[in-house]
């Protein structure tokens, strides 16, 4: 399929010293995002503040909506109008957006939802990091549906992975969740923005069929339907009700079964293609640490320190957290005696690790209720403890 290059007129190619939030905004612009709607919420607001300033310079539109409910659906309306769109929030707003994440999944609307996680639950710790929305990212809306969730761990990542997020959204016609955390969002590091010709973008899958033959939700060769350009006579219907290939509501168990297996299959059957991990010291690792986001950087430090003490520790960092890289974890359960999951919550992704390990190794959790990042020494203590029996 034909990739397109990014638009050189909009991209600030070169080296920058910016924080993750700003990098994420530039990543979206580089990905061709031309519509964002959002609502202020700490610690995410800088992303839309920057986009508000950049939008009228790069041919994009930004609107601050009256709340997250409006933001999360305005971007879907814009997507159907032809825009590449995204919204940005944190925990409390993420909760409000759940209905529309489900609506995006059900209507197969390409969209990106950014959550710069903070301490929760409820109002929690607005200015401090957390990673406690990870399960919510997967299961937060009602019903059966799939999401793709990415977890950057540096400002450079915030730029790079945003482009991947938009590409995945277009490829799978699904909402993609960009699960940052406050540390990564507010951390300032060097970010290199490449030249436009080195950024590949996946264009929207518009149908070439004439209106008389086109069915809005008929799966194409890879199981994913093509979209129709609005305003060109296709006269398509999009509904959140269970629908048939014509897009018409069809309230019966048979249609539900067909639709669900296609929608869920889109992601589950491609889970291995979508999955991505970053691994360190893994080849001979008898103790495998699993960590994502800011925690993965601390965990890597702990692994380095462990290695200096002769402990065969390694790190698997899911870059794509959903779909969870269960195949990789399952593989590693053959060589590792223990998995240590380090996350800034009271235990969320650890459940996925434990499930994938399926009892072939021990799974240990180093939780953190949030508000601060784990210390590498604290992780090392546990690694040493585990090394005694692993």
């Amino acid at each position: 399929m034909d990739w397109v290059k990014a638009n050189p007129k909009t991209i600030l190619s070169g080296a920058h010293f910016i924080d993750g939030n700003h990098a994420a905004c530039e990543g979206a612009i580089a990905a061709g995002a031309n519509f964002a709607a959002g609502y202020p919420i700490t610690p995410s607001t800088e992303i839309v503040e920057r986009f508000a300033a950049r939008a009228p310079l790069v041919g994009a539109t930004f609107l601050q909506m009256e709340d997250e409910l409006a933001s999360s659906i305005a971007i879907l309306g814009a997507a159907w109008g032809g825009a590449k769109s995204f919204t940005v929030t944190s925990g409390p707003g993420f909760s409000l957006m759940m209905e529309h994440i489900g609506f995006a999944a059900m209507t197969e609307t390409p969209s990106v939802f950014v959550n710069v996680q903070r301490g929760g639950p409820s109002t929690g710790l607005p200015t401090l990091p957390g990673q406690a929305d990870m399960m919510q990212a997967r299961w937060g809306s009602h019903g059966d549906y799939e999401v793709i969730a990415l977890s950057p761990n540096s400002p450079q990542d915030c730029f790079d992975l945003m482009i991947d997020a938009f590409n995945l959204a277009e490829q799978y016609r699904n909402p993609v969740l960009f699960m940052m955390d406050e540390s990564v969002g507010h951390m300032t590091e060097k970010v290199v923005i490449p030249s436009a010709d080195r950024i590949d973008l996946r264009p929207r899958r518009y149908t070439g069929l004439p209106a008389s033959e086109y069915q809005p939700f008929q799966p194409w060769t890879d199981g994913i339907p093509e979209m129709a350009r609005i305003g060109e006579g296709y006269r398509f219907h999009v509904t959140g009700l269970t629908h048939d290939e014509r897009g018409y509501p069809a309230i019966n168990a048979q249609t539900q079964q067909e639709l669900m297996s296609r929608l869920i299959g889109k992601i589950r059957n491609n889970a291995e293609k979508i999955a991505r991990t970053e691994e360190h010291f893994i080849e001979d690792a008898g103790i495998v640490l699993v960590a994502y986001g800011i925690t993965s950087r601390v965990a890597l430090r702990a692994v380095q320190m462990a290695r200096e003490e002769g402990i065969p520790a390694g790190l698997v960092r899911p870059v794509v957290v959903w779909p969870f890289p269960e195949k990789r974890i399952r593989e590693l359960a053959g060589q590792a005696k223990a998995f240590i999951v380090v996350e800034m919550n009271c235990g969320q992704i650890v459940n996925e690790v434990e499930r994938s390990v399926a009892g072939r190794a021990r799974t240990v959790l180093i939780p953190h209720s949030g508000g601060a990042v784990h210390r590498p020494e604290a992780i090392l203590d546990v690694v040493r403890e585990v090394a005694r029996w692993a």
Partner: protein
Amino acid sequence: MGVTTAVNPVEPLLRSDRMPHIWCPGCGIGTTVNCFARALEQSKLPLDKVAVVSGIGCTGRVAGYLNFDSFHTTHGRAIPFATGLKLANPDLTVVVYSGDGDLIAIGGNHFIHAARRNVDIKVICVNNFIYGMTGGQVAPTTPMGMSATTAPYGSFERPFNLPFLAESSGAVYVARWTAFHVRHIAHSMAEALRKKGFSFIEILAPCPTLYLRRNKLGDGLDTMRYYKQHSVIKNGASTRDLDLDVQGEIVVGKFVDTERPTLQQAMDQRYRQMLKDRYNGWRQP
């Protein structure tokens, strides 16, 4: 002269393969759809460029029955969806067609903000004073004392005066009709379709199965006769005076028809003023 064939004027605008619809005998929603069909004809708009966005509820089903690029969105959120749609594709004529509960209760916040911003969308609100689809619960438009399943002893809340709400929020076109006033509805709809800015048309309509039956108000036809008898057309009346009284007269008409920059225009204006040549506005791909 050869044989001519005739077609129901509404038929080409319907998804005929989805007929018959789910609305009850004597429900007023279908009547408003006929008016919409006539209005589209009158307005001479290119139909490919008309998009219909509905929320959830009986009136929310309109989007599914009309043969346009149409969206059946989430409860209360048709207006922000339509806002995103219109901003992304300004060539479209975006019509929000939904009910009183959807637009004004759960959708109330979005309603007032879109009116405030003067988003260029046309909002058709079929007001049947009840939540029909879910079985007849009280709505923010249910008159005081009228019974509903969640107000079984009669509503004790003052209902909204929708034209007043719309005008005070900033709508540039505000009209109210009843389902009896078919030609007026079609005319208002045609005006709204051509109007730039947030246009609001409230249409009072019967809900025979729930609101009328529960309150012993007869059937749809009884209500239509009631509308005919008790309506007074007062074009240009102050929207402050448009509270609906169960016993009294129903004031209908066109109340607001004014001009101010739409959201898109205001946005462009500000950016152009501040950025001059650097302004790079959104254009469709």
